């Protein structure tokens, strides 16, 4: 072999080794995510095409929806793939990425994010994007959902996290190299603290017309994406103790009615039917604790049933779902023990 050939082979091996190193080092040094949504590592471990419904949105999705309770009620397999303070632009790429792994009958998007600005806080942006699989959807989420000053760290995770080299744990190496386990809460974030809510309050926010139209355009794109995948786009506002201004809501409903195929549900209208107890069921004004979330999820299961979405996925794994229910119940038991 002449020197030129050797040089080319060495260069190729070098580049492969370098890329492998960067991929592994990025996976190891990125902080591991076990809660508060956005855990794509666990989501991609789910059996392909095994979900009937996937929930999206912000913390009002992952704190208020318990997939195990929905399964318990109507045998429907669901998952919450939401992220903190998530702008709807990132939600769009979440939905798009989800379709690479699952083919649900319906996508349910908690759309309180319609009032958010173009970008979330730096920490929330990192959480929402850093755990997405490294592909075109992640790039889309970065370009549309993060300010330019944060792009570098999101494209190249070592930029954000390499200084964790001296704080790495066994989990960092194990999960970084072999991947996450399945999330037994299916994207739900268990909250047990209780903050009694004395009264319902109007949501306080400022939004420009441009900001509203921008967010609405992402909802249109999500609806279009769902249509392309023969999936029902159901947009909803979660029950909570903060309500939207009536005129804002009327306008939103009217605008959503103009988007082809979109079904809209405002669960604030049904909060009395859910048996919610304001003194025991809230973590804060926007989020239920597990008691409230369970009541809301049961109501959600009934609503899904009424919408005619049936458990028809042939790849459901009843054993796994039973494990999920047991895990959820064990968390409640632990929480009750701690409370007493």
């Amino acid at each position, binding site marked *: 072999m002449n020197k030129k050939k050797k040089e080319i082979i*060495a260069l190729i091996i070098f580049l492969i080794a370098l890329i492998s190193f960067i991929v592994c080092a990025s996976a190891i040094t990125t902080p591991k995510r076990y809660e508060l949504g956005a855990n794509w590592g666990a989501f991609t471990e789910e059996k392909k095409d095994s979900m009937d419904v996937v929930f999206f949105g912000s913390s009002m999705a992952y704190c208020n929806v318990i997939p195990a309770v929905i399964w318990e009620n109507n045998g429907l397999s669901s998952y919450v793939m939401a992220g903190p303070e998530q702008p709807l632009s990132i939600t769009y790429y979440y939905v798009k990425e989800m379709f690479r792994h699952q083919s649900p009958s319906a996508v349910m998007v908690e759309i309180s994010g319609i009032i958010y600005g173009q970008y979330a806080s730096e920490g929330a942006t990192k959480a929402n994007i850093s755990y997405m699989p490294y592909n075109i959807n992640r790039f889309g989420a970065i370009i549309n959902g993060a300010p330019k000053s944060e792009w570098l760290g999101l494209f190249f995770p070592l930029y954000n996290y390499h200084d964790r080299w*001296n704080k790495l744990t066994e989990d960092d190496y194990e999960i970084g190299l072999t991947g996450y386990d399945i999330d037994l809460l299916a994207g739900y974030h268990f909250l047990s603290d209780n903050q009694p809510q004395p009264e319902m309050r109007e949501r306080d926010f400022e939004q420009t017309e441009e900001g509203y139209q921008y967010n609405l355009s992402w909802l249109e794109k999500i609806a279009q994406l769902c249509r392309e995948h023969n999936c029902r786009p159901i947009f909803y506002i979660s029950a909570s103790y903060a309500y939207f201004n009536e005129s804002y809501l009327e306008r939103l409903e009217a605008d959503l009615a103009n988007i082809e195929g979109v079904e809209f549900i405002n669960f604030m209208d049904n909060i009395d039917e859910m048996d919610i107890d304001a003194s025991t069921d809230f973590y804060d004004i926007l989020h239920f604790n597990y008691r409230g979330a369970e009541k809301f999820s049961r109501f959600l299961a009934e609503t899904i049933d009424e919408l005619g979405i049936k458990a028809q996925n042939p790849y459901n794994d009843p054993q796994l779902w039973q494990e999920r229910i047991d895990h959820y119940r064990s968390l409640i038991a632990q929480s009750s023990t701690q409370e007493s």
Partner: protein
Amino acid sequence: MNFNSLQYYLFLPIVIVLYYILPVKLRNPLLLIASYFFYMCWQPAYALLMLTSTAITYFCGICISRYPERKKIWLATSLILNLAILFFFKYFNFVASLITDILSAANLNVTAPSLDVLLPVGISFYTFQALGYTIDVYRGDIKAEKSFHIYALFVSFFPQLVAGPIERSRNLLPQFRETHRFSFDNIRAGMLPFLWGLFKKIVIADQLAVIVNTVYAAPENFLPYQLVAATIAFAFQIYCDFSAYSDIARGSAIMLGFRLMRNFNSPYFATSVKDFWRRWHISLSTWFRDYLYFPLGGNRCSKARHCFNLLVVFAVSGLWHGAALTFVIWGLLNGIYQVISLLTAPIRKKIQTACHLRDNNPLLTIFRYGITFVLICIAWVFFRADSLGDATYILSVILGLVPSAGDLGMAHLSMGLDASNKIMVIVAMVVLLIVDYLGLKHKLAEQIDKTIIPRYVIYFLLIAAILIFGSYGVGYDPQDFVYFQF
């Protein structure tokens, strides 16, 4: 645009690609535009200053060559105008405050006016490079460059523009007339100094800067051993920082087909202060040697005059580095070391002979490395300290002349860097010393370049170390190269 910035990692490949795909006649204009763009990323307005300096030296060079009978006048014109610009931007405030202090000491409360101007990046470097050219033309060592854009490129060539090496006209100018064909060998050969420079800057210098900045910002809070540690840290910081710039400059130039001079040669393996200055900032040392020390008479004169020449050269060298008394004292101290060395040479020789120690005795060599390093570190205290008062305080505490006011509180114990980063940086410094030591006897870069597997393994290790241990990214403030301020 720092060498350790994303902009430069994009800028360099773009320039390299354009350079090789453009027709030969467009390559120098491309480099000139790229060089001015590179410079204007700092202070766009000061590009005019560089252009002025370029125009003056170009014009004087042409006049020296055309009117040899008046060449002294043109040389003087070039020297006076360029040094006046340098004085105005770099030394005016220093001299003004010095005059104010002197008048105040004489009970005359007069405040000399000061200027609110930013020091143009790299002004000392390009001014000296341009002056070197004028002197070379004056001496007849080279012909005056007729093409303005080639000469402007010689002054502004981006790899070495901001912090050297200060290139000689006879080395760099002819290279702009060469045709550089694309060669993978050049890219490969440039990668090694480029990566080694980045490693020294990002992994060693910027980590050490944390310790140095913490301790030197408030030396009164630290114990003597911490002041010693911070001073040693600074010795390595400035070496890694400055030599890194030169290495990255050389690497970048090599990729474009240009050869820049080597600016450092294992300086902490010097066996004397004189030897240190043969190995440290070689392009500046040789500039002063050729354009100041030799014209003053060098060592071909009386011993007293020789000592005087040394002190003048080193005082000027100190002043070149910065407009502050600390730099002048740093320079003078290095001159004094050499004067003492010169005066005590016969006695030291006698002691060595009496002890039957040969020059190549390993223990003697190690002893010399140690003594030289200690002397250089003492001088570095003046170079780094924020004021003359701080420098004398640090040295007094280290030497036990005054008690330390520092305590061992947790906040001060770490000196700003946690234990794991300290261990990492010490390991990196050991690697650096091993490489420098091997470099004393071998042409390491050339030997590595001839191999295949070891070369790629070294590339890989350097990149991996930079990516994991480097000071970059969120939470880091990319440190400017120290020599930018000169």
